[in-house]
């Protein structure tokens, strides 16, 4: 049922990495953009792993029940926003530590999703549509690699929009001031708590959308192993990306592509030591962090109000 085609051989590897980068990076992208927005407002939300899982479950459940994947994405965003807002409200209380709250909410989100998600493991939900950018190619492999999901494109657009927002708009500048110095923000008359609450909720919504991508497009089904730590890695990517949305996009693509390396190399016959290839994304992150950091500017770009840099 498949047309015979010439063996791509080793050329299959870069193609698979490109395809993998596009397929695998989207959840990393959305979660890291969400965390970037939240941290730029001066708050850490470590609970995004839980939000990601909850979003995946909510999105899948809503799509199953309604038959529309876009309603699923909407429901996931809403669930994420509610969870983010909960984190924001809790952190507003005096003497509450945002790191501890984040971890608690991560566990709560995962537990809730597992509990409520039981009936949705077997049913099949409609998938999100993809745009076939590979139409020009005869090769089904190239076409499969260039099947790009709409959410990925939206994520790329969002990264650019966020970068522009932080640099050039009133909203972006307010968020930055709130994140860099509470005193300056108060002096400016910015409503500190409201800005942080909204930024945390918006960050949660983005992570929820990332979850919907996991369950509704790739790998495209709800199960309890679906996130397996991707939300946590995405939070770490924000530090790696020095709190800049465009660098978040780059980091997410790099991570996605490195993740595709293991299966791709095994597929072309490079089968020895696949455990090492699977460690590639982590080795890469460590390597880049070592290469880009220096004792003189350890946390360059970190918002001043962040509890880790304060």
């Amino acid at each position, binding site marked *: *049922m*498949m047309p*015979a*085609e010439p*063996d*791509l051989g080793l050329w*299959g590897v870069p*193609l*698979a990495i490109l*395809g*993998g980068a596009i*397929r*695998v990076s989207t959840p990393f992208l959305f979660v890291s953009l969400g965390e970037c927005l939240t941290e730029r407002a001066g708050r850490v939300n470590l609970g995004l792993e839980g939000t990601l899982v909850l979003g995946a479950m909510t999105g899948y459940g809503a799509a199953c029940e309604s038959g529309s994947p876009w309603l699923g994405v909407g429901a996931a965003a809403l669930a994420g926003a509610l969870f983010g807002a909960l984190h924001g409200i809790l952190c507003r209380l*005096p*003497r509450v530590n945002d790191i501890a709250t984040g971890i608690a909410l991560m566990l709560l989100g995962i537990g809730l999703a*597992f509990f409520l998600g*039981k009936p949705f*493991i*077997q049913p*099949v939900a409609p*998938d999100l549509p993809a745009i076939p950018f590979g139409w020009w190619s005869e090769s*089904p*492999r190239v076409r*499969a*690699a260039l099947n790009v999901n709409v959410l990925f494109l939206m994520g790329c657009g969002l990264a650019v929009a966020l970068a522009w927002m932080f640099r050039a708009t009133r909203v972006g500048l307010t968020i930055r001031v709130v994140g860099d110095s509470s005193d300056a923000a108060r002096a400016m008359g910015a409503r500190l708590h409201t800005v942080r609450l909204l930024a945390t909720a918006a960050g949660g919504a983005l992570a929820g959308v990332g979850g919907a991508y*996991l369950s509704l497009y*790739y*790998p*495209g*089904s709800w*199960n*309890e*192993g*679906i996130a*397996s730590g*991707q939300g946590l890695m995405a939070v770490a990517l924000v530090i790696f990306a020095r709190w800049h949305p465009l660098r978040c996009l780059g980091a997410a693509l790099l991570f996605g592509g490195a*993740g*595709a390396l*293991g*299966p*791709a190399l*095994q*597929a*072309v*016959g490079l*089968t*020895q*030591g*696949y*455990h090492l290839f*699977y460690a590639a994304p982590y080795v890469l992150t460590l390597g880049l962090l070592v290469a880009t950091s220096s004792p003189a500017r350890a946390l360059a770009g970190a918002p001043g109000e962040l509890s880790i840099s304060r």
Partner: protein
Amino acid sequence: MYRKRNRSRRDVLKATAGMAAVATAGTLMPWQVGRAASLTVGFIYVGPKDDYGYNQAHAEGAAALRSIEGVTLVEEENVSETVDVQKSMESMINFDGVTLLFPTSFGYFDPHILALAPGYPDLRFQHCGGLWTAGQHPTNVGSYFGYIGMGQYLNGIVAGHATTSGKIGFVAAKPIPQVLLNVNSFLLGARSVDSSITCQVIFTGEWSMPVKEAEATNALIDQGADVVTCHVDGPKVVMETAAGRGAWLCGYHANQAPLAPAQYLTGAEWNWAKVYQDMVAATLAGGTIDNFVRGGLAEGFIKMSPLGPAVSETARNHFEVARAEIMQGGFAVIRGPLKDNRGNVVAADGQSFAETDVALERMDYLVEGVIGSTS
């Protein structure tokens, strides 16, 4: 804002008395009374018990025990193959009064069950898939498994008839003997149709890792595989991804036909209900369970999914003939002359390993024609 609350001695006494009253009431409740002469059975799963795969097959077997009078079922899911499983087992033993344990994942056996079992000589540990050896392992540990490799051999026959590219694919979790036997059986089944067929295997390294499983499936199909099967805990992701890419599917663990009815050829399924009911019935009757229990198609430990609409008449006939031969017992998938994919002889001319042969459960090679490596 923040005020420290001092609890008075009276509050503490009240709370203590309340808790004592609740505990006493609990012991007086009727459900405690009927328990004495019954059996409490504990099941431990490595993943969620409804994963559409390995754990669900076990959980459905466990659920079949509920119909037996006097049996109380205790279950715990998502227990990793680490010291966690020892804690879970101890908690089941000490708090739930479990006397018959079914820790179902391969990695639970060594060292976890082997470490715990000698301390509880009166209890019974029944492990799925481990290679229990008399004299070497505790006598209160038992091992059971099914010859599911035969199912993958039958999958391979159907796959061999369906492939047009001459290349079939296998998404595997970890290179343990059972998985390797499945990969080898799948290829040898296909090679019984056409001896030039090759099978590409990709290991994901974990029992459940959906994103990697999807990537592996895509990579297999990118390399030209047009029939895909797997050995991971939840095959749903592999099946859906492969179906989306237009490949044929052979299922595993459970019947995945509803996911892609037109492309699903057949599948190798577990049938644990019968096995568990027999073991529990034997224990309730005061008997013992054999330390080493194995069974295949003939014993009803495994079964095949109904053949899909795309299976050709020739393939159907070949499948039925092979199945009848396996049902007679003693069938050998691994028979000489056969080399592994590094050129070492694994079965000399005239040598064969029947399905019951324990040597198969120490398999550490991939046969000639499988593209992949065990490390």
